[in-house]
Protein backbone atom coordinates (compact mmCIF):
# COMPACT_ATOMS: atom_id res chain seq x y z
CA UNK A 1 0.00 0.00 0.00
CA UNK A 2 2.84 2.38 0.94
CA UNK A 3 4.67 1.43 -2.25
CA UNK A 4 1.53 2.14 -4.28
CA UNK A 5 1.21 5.59 -2.69
CA UNK A 6 4.83 6.35 -3.51
CA UNK A 7 4.34 5.29 -7.12
CA UNK A 8 1.24 7.51 -7.29
CA UNK A 9 3.41 10.39 -6.14
CA UNK A 10 5.87 9.58 -8.94
CA UNK A 11 3.05 9.81 -11.50
CA UNK A 12 1.87 13.08 -9.98
CA UNK A 13 5.45 14.36 -9.98
CA UNK A 14 5.75 13.68 -13.70
CA UNK A 15 2.59 15.71 -14.37
CA UNK A 16 3.77 18.63 -12.22
CA UNK A 17 7.35 18.71 -13.54
CA UNK A 18 6.41 18.28 -17.21
CA UNK A 19 3.92 21.14 -17.02
CA UNK A 20 6.05 23.55 -15.02
CA UNK A 21 9.31 23.26 -16.94
CA UNK A 22 9.60 24.84 -20.42
CA UNK A 23 7.34 22.82 -22.71
CA UNK A 24 9.85 23.04 -25.57
CA UNK A 25 12.20 20.91 -23.51
CA UNK A 26 9.52 18.53 -22.30
CA UNK A 27 7.45 17.75 -25.40
CA UNK A 28 7.69 14.65 -27.56
CA UNK A 29 10.00 15.94 -30.28
CA UNK A 30 10.95 13.27 -32.81
CA UNK A 31 14.30 14.74 -33.97
CA UNK A 32 15.32 15.55 -30.38
CA UNK A 33 14.44 12.05 -29.14
CA UNK A 34 16.34 10.46 -32.00
CA UNK A 35 19.18 12.84 -31.12
CA UNK A 36 19.38 11.35 -27.63
CA UNK A 37 17.00 13.46 -25.49
CA UNK A 38 15.35 10.37 -24.08
CA UNK A 39 13.58 12.08 -21.15
CA UNK A 40 11.07 13.34 -23.72
CA UNK A 41 9.76 9.75 -24.01
CA UNK A 42 8.34 10.28 -20.51
CA UNK A 43 7.66 14.00 -20.30
CA UNK A 44 6.05 14.28 -23.77
CA UNK A 45 3.08 12.29 -22.49
CA UNK A 46 2.61 14.56 -19.47
CA UNK A 47 3.19 18.10 -20.81
CA UNK A 48 0.47 20.07 -22.60
CA UNK A 49 -0.09 22.73 -25.25
CA UNK A 50 -2.16 24.98 -22.98
CA UNK A 51 -3.76 25.18 -19.54
CA UNK A 52 -7.14 24.37 -21.09
CA UNK A 53 -5.64 21.27 -22.69
CA UNK A 54 -4.18 20.17 -19.34
CA UNK A 55 -7.44 20.91 -17.51
CA UNK A 56 -9.43 18.80 -20.00
CA UNK A 57 -7.18 15.78 -19.55
CA UNK A 58 -7.05 16.09 -15.74
CA UNK A 59 -10.85 16.34 -15.66
CA UNK A 60 -11.01 13.14 -17.72
CA UNK A 61 -8.75 11.32 -15.21
CA UNK A 62 -10.89 12.57 -12.32
CA UNK A 63 -14.04 11.30 -14.06
CA UNK A 64 -12.46 7.90 -14.74
CA UNK A 65 -11.38 7.68 -11.08
CA UNK A 66 -15.02 8.19 -10.07
CA UNK A 67 -16.16 5.43 -12.43
CA UNK A 68 -13.49 2.91 -11.43
CA UNK A 69 -13.27 3.76 -7.75
CA UNK A 70 -10.22 3.03 -5.61
CA UNK A 71 -8.85 0.21 -7.82
CA UNK A 72 -7.93 2.89 -10.41
CA UNK A 73 -4.84 3.53 -8.23
CA UNK A 74 -3.09 0.42 -9.51
CA UNK A 75 -3.64 1.77 -13.05
CA UNK A 76 -2.42 5.24 -12.17
CA UNK A 77 0.87 3.91 -10.81
CA UNK A 78 1.47 2.36 -14.23
CA UNK A 79 1.48 5.76 -15.97
CA UNK A 80 5.25 6.44 -15.63
CA UNK A 81 5.93 2.97 -17.08
CA UNK A 82 3.33 3.27 -19.84
CA UNK A 83 4.44 6.78 -20.94
CA UNK A 84 7.74 5.76 -22.64
CA UNK A 85 6.08 2.69 -24.17
CA UNK A 86 3.39 4.90 -25.69
CA UNK A 87 6.05 7.33 -26.97
CA UNK A 88 7.93 4.43 -28.59
CA UNK A 89 4.64 3.28 -30.14
CA UNK A 90 4.13 6.78 -31.61
CA UNK A 91 7.73 6.91 -32.83
CA UNK A 92 7.21 3.66 -34.67
CA UNK A 93 3.70 4.17 -36.03
CA UNK A 94 3.41 7.91 -36.74
CA UNK A 95 6.53 9.05 -38.61
CA UNK A 96 4.88 12.30 -39.82
CA UNK A 97 4.30 13.49 -36.26
CA UNK A 98 7.24 15.59 -35.07
CA UNK A 99 5.81 17.30 -31.97
CA UNK A 100 3.36 15.87 -29.49
CA UNK A 101 2.09 16.90 -26.07
CA UNK A 102 -0.75 15.47 -24.05
CA UNK A 103 -1.97 12.98 -21.53
CA UNK A 104 -4.91 11.61 -23.47
CA UNK A 105 -3.04 8.53 -24.74
CA UNK A 106 -2.61 7.53 -21.11
CA UNK A 107 -6.23 8.55 -20.44
CA UNK A 108 -7.20 5.97 -23.09
CA UNK A 109 -5.28 3.39 -21.08
CA UNK A 110 -7.25 4.39 -17.98
CA UNK A 111 -10.51 3.95 -19.95
CA UNK A 112 -9.62 0.24 -20.11
CA UNK A 113 -8.97 0.46 -16.37
CA UNK A 114 -12.44 1.92 -15.88
CA UNK A 115 -13.93 -0.93 -17.96
CA UNK A 116 -12.13 -3.55 -15.85
CA UNK A 117 -12.73 -1.94 -12.46
CA UNK A 118 -15.95 0.03 -12.99
CA UNK A 119 -18.51 -2.68 -13.67
CA UNK A 120 -21.31 -2.15 -16.20
CA UNK A 121 -20.91 1.64 -16.32
CA UNK A 122 -17.19 1.19 -17.02
CA UNK A 123 -17.91 -1.25 -19.84
CA UNK A 124 -20.50 0.99 -21.46
CA UNK A 125 -18.09 3.93 -21.20
CA UNK A 126 -15.30 1.93 -22.85
CA UNK A 127 -17.55 0.84 -25.73
CA UNK A 128 -18.77 4.43 -26.26
CA UNK A 129 -15.15 5.64 -26.10
CA UNK A 130 -14.09 3.18 -28.80
CA UNK A 131 -17.03 4.36 -30.92
CA UNK A 132 -15.89 7.97 -30.50
CA UNK A 133 -12.31 6.99 -31.36
CA UNK A 134 -13.48 5.29 -34.56
CA UNK A 135 -15.43 8.43 -35.48
CA UNK A 136 -12.33 10.59 -34.79
CA UNK A 137 -10.15 8.38 -37.00
CA UNK A 138 -12.43 8.84 -40.01
CA UNK A 139 -13.63 12.41 -39.44
CA UNK A 140 -10.56 14.05 -37.90
CA UNK A 141 -12.77 16.35 -35.82
CA UNK A 142 -10.74 19.33 -34.48
CA UNK A 143 -10.75 19.83 -30.72
CA UNK A 144 -11.63 23.23 -29.21
CA UNK A 145 -9.38 22.36 -26.27
CA UNK A 146 -6.27 22.48 -28.49
CA UNK A 147 -4.64 25.67 -29.85
CA UNK A 148 -4.88 26.52 -33.56
CA UNK A 149 -2.78 24.32 -35.82
CA UNK A 150 -2.60 21.39 -33.39
CA UNK A 151 -4.38 18.23 -34.49
CA UNK A 152 -5.70 15.57 -32.11
CA UNK A 153 -3.58 12.43 -32.28
CA UNK A 154 -5.95 9.46 -32.47
CA UNK A 155 -2.86 7.24 -32.79
CA UNK A 156 -1.96 7.97 -29.17
CA UNK A 157 -5.49 6.92 -28.13
CA UNK A 158 -5.14 3.64 -30.04
CA UNK A 159 -1.72 3.11 -28.42
CA UNK A 160 -3.18 3.88 -25.00
CA UNK A 161 -6.03 1.40 -25.50
CA UNK A 162 -3.54 -1.31 -26.53
CA UNK A 163 -1.39 -0.58 -23.48
CA UNK A 164 -4.55 -0.71 -21.37
CA UNK A 165 -5.42 -4.15 -22.75
CA UNK A 166 -1.85 -5.28 -22.02
CA UNK A 167 -2.10 -3.97 -18.45
CA UNK A 168 -5.51 -5.63 -17.99
CA UNK A 169 -4.03 -8.95 -19.13
CA UNK A 170 -1.12 -8.46 -16.72
CA UNK A 171 -3.39 -7.69 -13.77
CA UNK A 172 -5.58 -10.68 -14.60
CA UNK A 173 -2.56 -12.97 -14.73
CA UNK A 174 -1.27 -11.60 -11.42
CA UNK A 175 -4.70 -11.94 -9.79
CA UNK A 176 -5.09 -15.59 -10.90
CA UNK A 177 -1.57 -16.49 -9.71
CA UNK A 178 -2.11 -14.88 -6.31
CA UNK A 179 -2.38 -17.66 -3.69
CA UNK A 180 -5.87 -17.61 -2.25
CA UNK A 181 -6.03 -17.29 1.51
CA UNK A 182 -7.60 -20.18 3.34
Amino acid at each position, binding site marked *: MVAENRLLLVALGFIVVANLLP*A*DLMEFNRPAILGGQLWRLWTG*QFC*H*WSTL*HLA*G*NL*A*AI*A*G*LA*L*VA*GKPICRWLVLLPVAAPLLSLFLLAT*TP*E*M*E*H*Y*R*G*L*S*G*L*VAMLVVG*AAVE*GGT*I*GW*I*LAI*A*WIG*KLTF*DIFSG*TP*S*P*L*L*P*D*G*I*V*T*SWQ*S*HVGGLLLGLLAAAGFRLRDTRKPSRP
Partner: protein
Amino acid sequence: MIRKSVVLLCATLALGTLSGCATWFDHNSRTQRGTVVEYLYPKGDKPILAPTVPELRLPLRVGIAFVPGERFGDLSEAERDQLLNRIKSAFANRPYISAIEVIPSAYLRAGGGFDNLEQAARMFNVDVVTLLSYDQVQFNDSNRLSLLYWTIVGAYLINGDQYDVNTLVDASVFDVKSRNLLFRAPGTSQIKGSSPMVKFSEASRAARSEGFSQAIDSLIPQLDKQLETFKVRVKEEKVARIVEKPGYSGSHRGGDTGLAGLGLIGVAALLALARQRRGG
Protein backbone atom coordinates in the same frame (compact mmCIF):
# COMPACT_ATOMS: atom_id res chain seq x y z
CA MET B 1 42.88 102.23 -15.12
CA ILE B 2 44.79 100.35 -17.82
CA ARG B 3 45.85 97.77 -15.24
CA LYS B 4 42.24 97.28 -14.18
CA SER B 5 41.18 96.80 -17.80
CA VAL B 6 43.91 94.20 -18.38
CA VAL B 7 42.86 92.28 -15.27
CA LEU B 8 39.21 92.39 -16.38
CA LEU B 9 40.16 91.22 -19.87
CA CYS B 10 42.27 88.35 -18.49
CA ALA B 11 39.46 87.36 -16.12
CA THR B 12 36.93 87.36 -18.98
CA LEU B 13 39.24 85.29 -21.18
CA ALA B 14 39.92 82.81 -18.36
CA LEU B 15 36.21 82.48 -17.60
CA GLY B 16 35.42 82.01 -21.26
CA THR B 17 38.10 79.37 -21.69
CA LEU B 18 37.16 77.45 -18.55
CA SER B 19 33.44 77.55 -19.22
CA GLY B 20 34.29 76.30 -22.67
CA CYS B 21 35.31 73.04 -21.00
CA ALA B 22 31.67 72.41 -20.39
CA THR B 23 30.80 72.91 -23.99
CA TRP B 24 33.74 71.12 -25.67
CA PHE B 25 31.48 68.14 -25.76
CA ASP B 26 29.02 67.95 -28.69
CA HIS B 27 25.54 68.67 -27.39
CA ASN B 28 23.76 68.05 -30.64
CA SER B 29 21.21 65.27 -30.90
CA ARG B 30 22.24 62.07 -32.59
CA THR B 31 19.96 60.04 -34.85
CA GLN B 32 20.16 56.63 -36.47
CA ARG B 33 17.36 55.51 -38.68
CA GLY B 34 16.42 52.80 -41.13
CA THR B 35 12.90 52.83 -42.51
CA VAL B 36 10.94 50.24 -44.45
CA VAL B 37 9.69 52.89 -46.87
CA GLU B 38 13.22 54.03 -47.79
CA TYR B 39 14.30 50.42 -48.21
CA LEU B 40 11.35 49.11 -50.20
CA TYR B 41 10.43 52.26 -52.11
CA PRO B 42 13.71 54.09 -52.77
CA LYS B 43 13.79 57.34 -54.75
CA GLY B 44 10.15 57.97 -53.99
CA ASP B 45 8.85 54.91 -55.84
CA LYS B 46 5.10 54.60 -55.39
CA PRO B 47 3.70 51.38 -53.95
CA ILE B 48 1.85 49.31 -56.55
CA LEU B 49 -1.64 48.87 -55.23
CA ALA B 50 -2.85 45.63 -56.79
CA PRO B 51 -5.87 44.22 -54.94
CA THR B 52 -4.46 40.76 -54.25
CA VAL B 53 -5.13 38.38 -51.41
CA PRO B 54 -1.83 36.87 -50.24
CA GLU B 55 -1.61 33.09 -50.14
CA LEU B 56 0.18 31.76 -47.06
CA ARG B 57 1.41 28.20 -47.30
CA LEU B 58 1.59 26.63 -43.84
CA PRO B 59 3.84 25.91 -42.12
CA LEU B 60 5.53 29.18 -43.00
CA ARG B 61 9.24 29.76 -43.41
CA VAL B 62 9.91 33.21 -42.00
CA GLY B 63 12.91 35.49 -42.48
CA ILE B 64 13.78 38.28 -40.06
CA ALA B 65 16.15 41.19 -40.67
CA PHE B 66 16.95 44.77 -39.75
CA VAL B 67 16.21 47.21 -42.55
CA PRO B 68 19.55 48.37 -43.97
CA GLY B 69 19.94 52.02 -42.94
CA GLU B 70 22.37 54.72 -43.89
CA ARG B 71 23.69 55.08 -40.36
CA PHE B 72 23.73 52.12 -38.02
CA GLY B 73 27.06 52.47 -36.32
CA ASP B 74 26.35 51.48 -32.75
CA LEU B 75 25.23 47.89 -33.05
CA SER B 76 27.70 45.34 -34.32
CA GLU B 77 26.47 42.55 -36.59
CA ALA B 78 26.80 40.16 -33.63
CA GLU B 79 24.58 42.37 -31.45
CA ARG B 80 22.00 42.70 -34.23
CA ASP B 81 22.08 38.93 -34.66
CA GLN B 82 21.52 38.50 -30.92
CA LEU B 83 18.48 40.82 -30.97
CA LEU B 84 16.99 39.06 -33.99
CA ASN B 85 17.55 35.70 -32.33
CA ARG B 86 15.55 36.87 -29.31
CA ILE B 87 12.57 37.48 -31.57
CA LYS B 88 13.23 34.19 -33.32
CA SER B 89 13.15 32.18 -30.08
CA ALA B 90 9.94 33.93 -28.97
CA PHE B 91 8.09 32.69 -32.06
CA ALA B 92 9.98 29.53 -33.05
CA ASN B 93 7.63 27.08 -31.34
CA ARG B 94 4.49 28.12 -33.24
CA PRO B 95 3.08 25.10 -35.06
CA TYR B 96 2.33 27.14 -38.19
CA ILE B 97 5.97 28.29 -38.46
CA SER B 98 8.38 25.64 -39.68
CA ALA B 99 11.53 27.78 -39.48
CA ILE B 100 12.67 31.32 -38.73
CA GLU B 101 15.83 32.40 -40.54
CA VAL B 102 17.88 35.38 -39.36
CA ILE B 103 18.96 37.33 -42.46
CA PRO B 104 22.28 39.15 -41.85
CA SER B 105 22.52 42.82 -42.87
CA ALA B 106 25.09 41.97 -45.55
CA TYR B 107 22.37 40.30 -47.62
CA LEU B 108 20.22 43.44 -47.81
CA ARG B 109 21.17 46.58 -49.72
CA ALA B 110 20.12 50.09 -48.63
CA GLY B 111 17.32 51.17 -50.96
CA GLY B 112 17.28 47.69 -52.50
CA GLY B 113 13.50 47.57 -52.83
CA PHE B 114 11.37 44.47 -53.24
CA ASP B 115 13.83 43.07 -55.80
CA ASN B 116 16.51 42.89 -53.13
CA LEU B 117 14.01 41.50 -50.60
CA GLU B 118 12.98 38.76 -53.07
CA GLN B 119 16.64 37.86 -53.69
CA ALA B 120 17.27 37.48 -49.95
CA ALA B 121 14.01 35.53 -49.49
CA ARG B 122 15.02 33.11 -52.26
CA MET B 123 18.51 32.74 -50.81
CA PHE B 124 17.15 31.90 -47.36
CA ASN B 125 14.14 30.01 -48.74
CA VAL B 126 11.54 31.99 -46.79
CA ASP B 127 7.93 32.90 -47.70
CA VAL B 128 7.44 35.79 -45.33
CA VAL B 129 9.96 38.40 -44.14
CA THR B 130 9.75 40.46 -40.97
CA LEU B 131 11.61 43.74 -41.51
CA LEU B 132 12.65 45.68 -38.44
CA SER B 133 12.87 49.40 -39.06
CA TYR B 134 14.34 51.59 -36.34
CA ASP B 135 14.52 55.20 -35.35
CA GLN B 136 16.74 56.17 -32.46
CA VAL B 137 17.26 59.74 -31.32
CA GLN B 138 19.66 60.74 -28.57
CA PHE B 139 19.44 64.18 -26.94
CA ASN B 140 22.44 65.43 -24.96
CA ASP B 141 22.40 68.18 -22.33
CA SER B 142 24.63 69.52 -19.60
CA ASN B 143 23.25 69.99 -16.13
CA ARG B 144 24.31 72.44 -13.39
CA LEU B 145 26.91 70.03 -12.08
CA SER B 146 28.86 70.54 -15.30
CA LEU B 147 30.14 73.80 -13.80
CA LEU B 148 32.40 71.60 -11.72
CA TYR B 149 34.18 70.55 -14.94
CA TRP B 150 36.15 73.78 -14.36
CA THR B 151 38.04 71.92 -11.71
CA ILE B 152 39.30 69.43 -14.38
CA VAL B 153 38.90 66.61 -11.82
CA GLY B 154 35.17 67.20 -12.05
CA ALA B 155 35.23 66.11 -15.69
CA TYR B 156 36.24 62.65 -14.45
CA LEU B 157 34.03 62.40 -11.38
CA ILE B 158 30.93 64.53 -11.73
CA ASN B 159 27.91 63.43 -13.77
CA GLY B 160 27.51 66.76 -15.48
CA ASP B 161 26.28 65.52 -18.83
CA GLN B 162 23.01 63.76 -19.41
CA TYR B 163 21.50 61.85 -22.28
CA ASP B 164 17.98 60.89 -23.28
CA VAL B 165 17.80 58.02 -25.79
CA ASN B 166 14.44 57.35 -27.47
CA THR B 167 14.20 54.22 -29.57
CA LEU B 168 11.45 52.92 -31.81
CA VAL B 169 11.71 49.51 -33.47
CA ASP B 170 8.88 48.64 -35.82
CA ALA B 171 8.35 45.14 -37.20
CA SER B 172 6.59 44.92 -40.57
CA VAL B 173 5.68 41.46 -41.79
CA PHE B 174 5.62 41.14 -45.59
CA ASP B 175 4.46 38.31 -47.80
CA VAL B 176 7.30 38.30 -50.30
CA LYS B 177 5.40 36.84 -53.26
CA SER B 178 2.43 39.22 -53.18
CA ARG B 179 4.50 42.08 -51.66
CA ASN B 180 1.64 42.67 -49.21
CA LEU B 181 2.13 44.02 -45.72
CA LEU B 182 0.43 41.43 -43.49
CA PHE B 183 0.70 43.23 -40.17
CA ARG B 184 3.02 45.40 -38.11
CA ALA B 185 3.88 46.01 -34.48
CA PRO B 186 5.97 48.64 -32.66
CA GLY B 187 8.37 48.43 -29.74
CA THR B 188 9.65 51.50 -27.92
CA SER B 189 12.05 52.44 -25.17
CA GLN B 190 13.32 55.55 -23.44
CA ILE B 191 16.55 55.59 -21.49
CA LYS B 192 17.75 58.57 -19.48
CA GLY B 193 21.10 58.80 -17.77
CA SER B 194 24.06 60.94 -16.94
CA SER B 195 27.81 60.56 -16.82
CA PRO B 196 31.04 62.53 -16.35
CA MET B 197 32.29 64.25 -19.48
CA VAL B 198 35.18 61.90 -20.14
CA LYS B 199 32.97 58.81 -19.95
CA PHE B 200 30.02 60.31 -21.79
CA SER B 201 30.75 58.75 -25.15
CA GLU B 202 31.04 55.24 -23.68
CA ALA B 203 27.97 55.61 -21.42
CA SER B 204 25.74 57.00 -24.13
CA ARG B 205 26.82 54.27 -26.57
CA ALA B 206 25.87 51.63 -23.97
CA ALA B 207 22.52 53.41 -23.50
CA ARG B 208 21.88 53.32 -27.24
CA SER B 209 22.56 49.56 -27.32
CA GLU B 210 20.35 49.07 -24.26
CA GLY B 211 17.68 51.18 -25.98
CA PHE B 212 17.54 48.70 -28.86
CA SER B 213 17.45 45.80 -26.43
CA GLN B 214 14.55 47.27 -24.43
CA ALA B 215 12.66 48.20 -27.60
CA ILE B 216 12.93 44.59 -28.80
CA ASP B 217 11.63 43.39 -25.41
CA SER B 218 8.66 45.72 -25.80
CA LEU B 219 8.18 44.66 -29.43
CA ILE B 220 7.85 40.89 -28.80
CA PRO B 221 4.50 40.96 -26.92
CA GLN B 222 3.14 43.56 -29.35
CA LEU B 223 4.11 41.38 -32.30
CA ASP B 224 2.49 38.39 -30.64
CA LYS B 225 -0.70 40.40 -30.11
CA GLN B 226 -0.76 41.56 -33.73
CA LEU B 227 -0.13 38.00 -34.92
CA GLU B 228 -3.17 36.80 -32.97
CA THR B 229 -5.24 39.68 -34.39
CA PHE B 230 -4.05 38.77 -37.89
CA LYS B 231 -5.13 35.14 -37.35
CA VAL B 232 -8.61 36.35 -36.42
CA ARG B 233 -8.68 38.66 -39.48
CA VAL B 234 -7.68 35.74 -41.72
CA LYS B 235 -10.61 33.73 -40.38
CA GLU B 236 -13.20 36.48 -40.32
CA GLU B 237 -12.17 38.99 -43.00
CA LYS B 238 -10.28 36.58 -45.29
CA VAL B 239 -7.31 38.97 -45.54
CA ALA B 240 -5.12 36.04 -46.61
CA ARG B 241 -5.71 32.62 -48.12
CA ILE B 242 -4.30 29.74 -46.08
CA VAL B 243 -2.97 26.69 -47.89
CA GLU B 244 -1.49 23.75 -46.02
CA LYS B 245 1.70 22.22 -47.39
CA PRO B 246 1.58 18.40 -47.69
CA GLY B 247 2.14 16.74 -44.32
CA TYR B 248 1.65 19.98 -42.36
CA SER B 249 -1.45 18.92 -40.47
CA GLY B 250 0.41 15.97 -39.03
CA SER B 251 3.55 17.55 -37.69
CA HIS B 252 2.15 19.03 -34.44
CA ARG B 253 -0.30 16.94 -32.48
CA GLY B 254 -1.95 16.91 -29.14
CA GLY B 255 -3.16 14.14 -26.91
CA ASP B 256 -6.56 15.54 -26.18
CA THR B 257 -9.62 13.90 -24.63
CA GLY B 258 -11.90 16.30 -26.51
CA LEU B 259 -15.28 17.66 -25.52
CA ALA B 260 -17.08 14.49 -26.66
CA GLY B 261 -14.71 12.32 -24.61
CA LEU B 262 -15.14 14.56 -21.57
CA GLY B 263 -18.89 14.39 -22.04
CA LEU B 264 -18.86 10.57 -22.09
CA ILE B 265 -16.64 10.37 -19.03
CA GLY B 266 -18.74 13.00 -17.26
CA VAL B 267 -21.99 11.09 -17.81
CA ALA B 268 -20.32 7.83 -16.69
CA ALA B 269 -18.93 9.54 -13.58
CA LEU B 270 -22.38 10.92 -12.68
CA LEU B 271 -23.94 7.46 -13.12
CA ALA B 272 -21.18 5.95 -10.95
CA LEU B 273 -21.82 8.55 -8.24
CA ALA B 274 -25.57 7.83 -8.35
CA ARG B 275 -24.81 4.10 -8.10
CA GLN B 276 -22.58 4.67 -5.09
CA ARG B 277 -25.27 6.72 -3.33
CA ARG B 278 -27.87 4.04 -3.95
CA GLY B 279 -25.46 1.37 -2.73
CA GLY B 280 -24.26 3.41 0.27
